[in-house]
């Protein structure tokens, strides 16, 4: 291949294809440019002698109405950590699913160890040493942690029945769990783990595979603070062992910390690559969305002083920590951040506030009046809304259209004489689609085909279409791209400015500090402290999270 | 081809080996009635709705006369009358006297029950306790046989203490006998009211080693029943003659359609009596049965 456009100098190695829709030509150019960069980086990083472990060429994948990937090419070398970033729906997960053998590309070749394939099967993918942590969790709740980690690769005892060697299974799992910093044992049933703990199991699983390439599709989306650090350490350790890693994340600072090279996807095409010394937040953002963000993903300052307490919990006890009463009040016009470690009981509290779970004791008050919630319907009727953390299971109905999802909680308002009016639904949905910038062919699109981030916007849209008094958001930007994040922060601020009480549960330290007006921190089921704006610091939040006093 | 000749149908009340002899009778009649097309129809389930449906469809298909063993003759008056108004309707096996059926040809289940009582009396002159087994306790033929037997036993020292139903599940039929042996050790006689009940009694007794110790009274002519009779382990069995019902019935219907009503008695009842088959008659009966089905 011709060497083309190999530009020297660390800062300029940003290959930007033309703006606008993709074309085969552009794709080819992108490919050529990429190869150039690769060749260059060979020389600069000094792994030039090793052949690429894996390379993709001209991969294209279409779904009805969507081109998810368009003539995409890239290479992965042994011991390389590639940060893969891009907006929601850019095609990152699709790309990884092709590598995992879960999805078949329309065209293109995948070369593993010099052998070219039109497509990979799951077995072929696993067989060639590709390990995969999926964006959506894929654990078996009815099995224990060890069984999940080694699922499909169980150590066997000799014999015709292919029996599982259970002792060895446990022995093998323990060190892996320790490595990811798990606070639970190998024989814990997965059904009792929190979402973040399950994510740790997924990572332990990826580590357990004698992998040559580990793909992590947003592994930190619900990992907070310390656990994230541990994961990044794990990635570094893998690299040291010569294992390649593809790390997908919307938390760009994490990418900055571990990646050797950043590949940026936009609209299914390669938007550019950044070598190690050119990786920085602004460059990544520029490649991802084609422009610089005016401000970093932060909410604007509050425009009004906080009002009276809207929703308050008095000595409320939840099933996660039945012995720990929680007291917390969120005021009109403020964004109250709720931070804490994995399993500190925040989600459980949110479920009680939204009426999904029964409180085991204590009382709720809304605007000073006692509030009894028998079900989520009661909460909705009182203007208390929840954006749940598990989008796929509880947030939206993947099989319904965008419009139907948005109108669902407020269907009687879209009906005449209890007959649903499709046009009224469409009007509401179109408005929300525009306001939130939901990327979809139309509001009649099935929600399940949207990218994770766009699905999250649909969840938000359904509540924003109504009139919230209290809005509870559990990990609202989980899996959401930078651009959309900023928009969501803007929306939250707008809600607060309109007098809504906003309670934001988040494990993302930057987000908690950047967005909140006050921060409450939970430790083992109790509020260990509340920080005002002037006390905000990572250190203070961390201290409270582990149950110590802030400085 | 089938439509050229008038069709006569024999509709039974459910699938059972009992009707195999009737099939033979139909076959024999067919040989003698070349101008007719004779059919024997099984409803796919023993239920009123399905049998009614079958007859409706037969009428639609142009059947000229139907002979039916109604699933529930007592209360199906209207349905049967509807059929009778559209085609020539005869009943068999169990009568529906209140309908507009032309005639009934068959046996009397009450009489059959009485004959069973005769067998019991003869086998147990000193009296005894009898347990009955039947498929559907609520079915008319079962009720009438039980009633007839009780009538026949009235005033003797023999008593029919209970009748257990099994919903025509053979496994349950056999288990019922096994359980009865456990629950009532003082039972001295067992009665199988449906054709398959006697063989199940026979087998359960054989498994328990009690063959010959308990008097078995049978109904119908299952090969196992006949074998037991011959062996002496079944006291005797009361047999009906479905072959005759079918054979005579078909010829009667053909004659009726041709305008010859001489075969139909005043009261519309043509009773073909049931017979007791004991050890002495069994060989002749079995040979006859074989000859008929070989026809």
């Amino acid at each position: 291949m011709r060497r083309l456009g190999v530009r020297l100098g660390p800062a300029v190695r940003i290959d930007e294809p033309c703006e606008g829709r993709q074309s085969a030509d552009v794709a080819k150019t992108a490919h050529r440019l990429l190869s150039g960069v690769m060749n260059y980086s060979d020389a600069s990083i000094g792994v030039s002698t090793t052949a690429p472990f894996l390379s993709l060429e001209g991969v294209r994948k279409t779904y009805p109405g969507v081109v998810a990937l368009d003539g995409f090419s890239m290479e992965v070398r042994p011991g390389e950590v590639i940060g893969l970033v891009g907006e929601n729906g850019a095609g990152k997960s699709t790309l990884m699913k092709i590598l995992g053998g879960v999805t078949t590309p329309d065209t293109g070749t995948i070369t593993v160890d010099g052998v070219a394939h039109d497509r990979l099967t799951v077995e072929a993918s696993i067989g060639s040493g590709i390990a995969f942590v999926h964006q959506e969790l894929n654990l078996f709740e009815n099995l224990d942690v060890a069984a999940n980690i080694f699922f499909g690769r169980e150590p066997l005892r000799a014999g015709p029945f292919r029996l599982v060697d259970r002792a060895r299974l446990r022995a093998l799992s323990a060190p892996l769990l320790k490595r990811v910093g798990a606070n639970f044992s190998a024989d814990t049933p997965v059904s009792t783990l929190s979402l973040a703990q399950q994510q740790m199991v997924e990572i332990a699983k990826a580590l357990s595979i004698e992998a040559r390439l580990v793909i992590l599709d947003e592994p930190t989306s619900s990992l907070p603070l310390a656990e994230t650090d541990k994961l990044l350490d794990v990635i570094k350790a893998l690299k040291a062992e010569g294992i390649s890693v593809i790390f997908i994340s919307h938390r760009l600072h994490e990418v900055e910390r571990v990646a050797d090279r950043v590949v940026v996807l936009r609209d299914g095409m390669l938007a550019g690559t950044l070598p190690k010394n050119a990786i920085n937040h602004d460059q990544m953002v520029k490649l991802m969305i084609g422009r610089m963000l005016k401000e970093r993903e932060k909410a604007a300052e509050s425009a009004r002083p906080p009002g009276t307490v809207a929703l308050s919990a008095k000595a409320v006890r939840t099933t996660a920590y039945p012995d720990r009463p929680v007291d917390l009040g969120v005021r009109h016009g403020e964004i109250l951040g709720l931070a804490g470690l994995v399993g500190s009981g925040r989600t459980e509290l949110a479920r009680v506030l939204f009426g999904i779970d029964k409180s085991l004791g204590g009382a709720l008050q809304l605007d000073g009046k006692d509030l009894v919630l028998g079900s989520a319907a009661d909460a909705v009727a009182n203007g208390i809304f929840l954006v749940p953390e598990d989008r796929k299971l509880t947030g939206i109905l993947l099989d319904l259209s965008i419009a139907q999802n948005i109108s669902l909680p407020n269907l009687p308002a879209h009906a005449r004489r209890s007959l649903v009016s499709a046009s009224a639904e469409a009007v509401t949905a179109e408005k929300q689609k525009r306001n939130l910038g939901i990327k979809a062919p139309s509001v009649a699109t099935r929600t399940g085909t949207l990218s994770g981030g766009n699905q999250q916007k649909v969840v938000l849209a359904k509540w924003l279409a109504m009139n919230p008094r209290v809005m509870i958001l559990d990990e609202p930007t989980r899996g959401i791209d930078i651009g959309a994040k900023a928009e969501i922060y803007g929306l939250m601020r707008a809600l607060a400015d309109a007098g809504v009480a906003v309670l934001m549960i988040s494990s993302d330290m930057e987000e908690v500090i950047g967005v909140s007006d006050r921060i409450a921190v939970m430790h083992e089921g109790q509020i260990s402290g509340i920080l005002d704006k002037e006390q905000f610091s990572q250190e203070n939040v961390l201290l409270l999270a582990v149950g110590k006093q802030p400085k | 081809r089938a439509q050229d000749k008038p069709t006569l149908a024999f509709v039974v009340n459910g699938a059972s080996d009992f009707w195999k002899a009737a099939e033979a009778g139909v076959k024999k009649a067919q040989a003698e009635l070349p101008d007719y097309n004779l059919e024997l129809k099984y409803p796919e389930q023993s239920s009123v709705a399905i049998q009614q449906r079958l007859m409706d469809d037969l009428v639609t298909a142009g059947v000229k006369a139907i002979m039916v063993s109604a699933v529930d003759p007592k209360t199906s008056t209207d349905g049967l009358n509807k059929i009778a108004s559209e085609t020539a309707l005869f009943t068999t096996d169990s009568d529906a006297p209140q309908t507009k059926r032309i005639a009934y040809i068959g046996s009397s289940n009450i009489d059959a029950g009485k004959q069973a009582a005769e067998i019991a009396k003869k086998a147990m002159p000193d009296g005894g306790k009898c347990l009955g087994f039947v498929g559907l306790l609520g079915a008319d033929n079962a009720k009438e046989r039980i009633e007839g037997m009780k009538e026949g036993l009235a005033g003797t020292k023999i008593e029919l203490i209970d009748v257990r139903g099994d919903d025509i599940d053979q496994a349950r039929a056999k288990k019922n006998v096994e359980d009865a042996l456990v629950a009532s050790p003082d039972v001295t006689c067992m009665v199988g009211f449906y054709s398959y009940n006697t063989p199940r009694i026979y087998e359960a007794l054989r498994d328990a080693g009690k063959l010959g110790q308990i008097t078995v009274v049978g109904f119908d002519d299952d090969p196992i029943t006949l074998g037991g009779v011959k062996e002496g382990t079944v006291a005797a069995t009361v047999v009906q003659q479905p072959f005759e019902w079918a054979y005579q019935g078909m010829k009667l219907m053909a004659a009726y359609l041709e305008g010859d009503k001489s075969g139909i008695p005043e009261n519309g009842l043509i009773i073909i009596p049931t017979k007791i088959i004991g050890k002495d008659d069994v060989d002749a009966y079995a040979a006859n049965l074989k000859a008929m089905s070989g026809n």
Partner: protein
Amino acid sequence: MSKKDLGLLILILVVGAVVAIINPRFLLPINLANTSNLIGLFGILAIGQAFVIITGGIELSVGSVVALLGVLFVDFIATRGMAWPVALPLILVLGGIIGLAHGWLITRLKLQPFVVTLCGLLIYRGVARFYTADGTAGFAFGQNFPELEFLTAGRSYGVPNSFIALIVIAIVMWVVLHRSVFGRYLYAIGKNEEAAKYSGIRTGRVVMAAYVICGVLTALSAIYFAMYTRSISPASHGQFYELYAIAAAVLGGFSLRGGEGSLIGVILGTVLLQELQNLVNLLGIPSSLNFAVMGGVILIGVLVDQQWGVYRERRLMLEATRKGTAGAAAE
């Protein structure tokens, strides 16, 4: 009408045409009337079942309920001398109560629909048999209820009134299922009950309502069946009717996982099943094969539907790819 429903309709017409060619008596008004009468009876059952299936549930006790309520209805009006305008709503209420009980056990006590209604299947038949001491409930000779008989077993302009009742019910239920807020909730719950709950829908009540609707419709058809057979032996009456109803719904495009299916589909499913029964009898196929024919046709129908879906999807994909490539080439 969806493509799925259209396919089913075409199948029904083709089968009908073939049968009519072999035996032209198939098209006699009397045969059509007889068959449409049974379509009416089974159709009402199947619509009830459809409401439950759409929520991802199942109602296995239908046949036993038909037996139990049928026995009670006949007993009330024939033996106990209750006026039928009293007995009829009473039976419907009883059906509703049975549905409510099932719905309550399923939504409040979180039992599985299959388990609850399986127990119902066993219990109601037992109770019905015990009630009549395994005897038959029927009308005495000459006992007549002219208005009731007209409404249930009569004909208007040659059309069985049971069929007319089905049409009316189907129209109402179509609106409920496909146009009303309640119907949308049913679909949403069938797709993902948790998510529906998180959207503030009182899922328990909605599901319970579905079982109540099923119970009431089952009760109604129990009355129709009772007036059709005019005699009920509780040991066998209505046996397997739940399978007919489920089969009709499945043929009509319902998924037992919930959240899929249309009302027109379930009606067409019923029509096809009854057409098959009629065909077996009219073409002189041994009745022992009746069930086999039914099973075979359902299997083929479902298979064709499924394979057709796969084919269409593949074609769509292909088209999308071709369009994309063409666009690229043009540039």
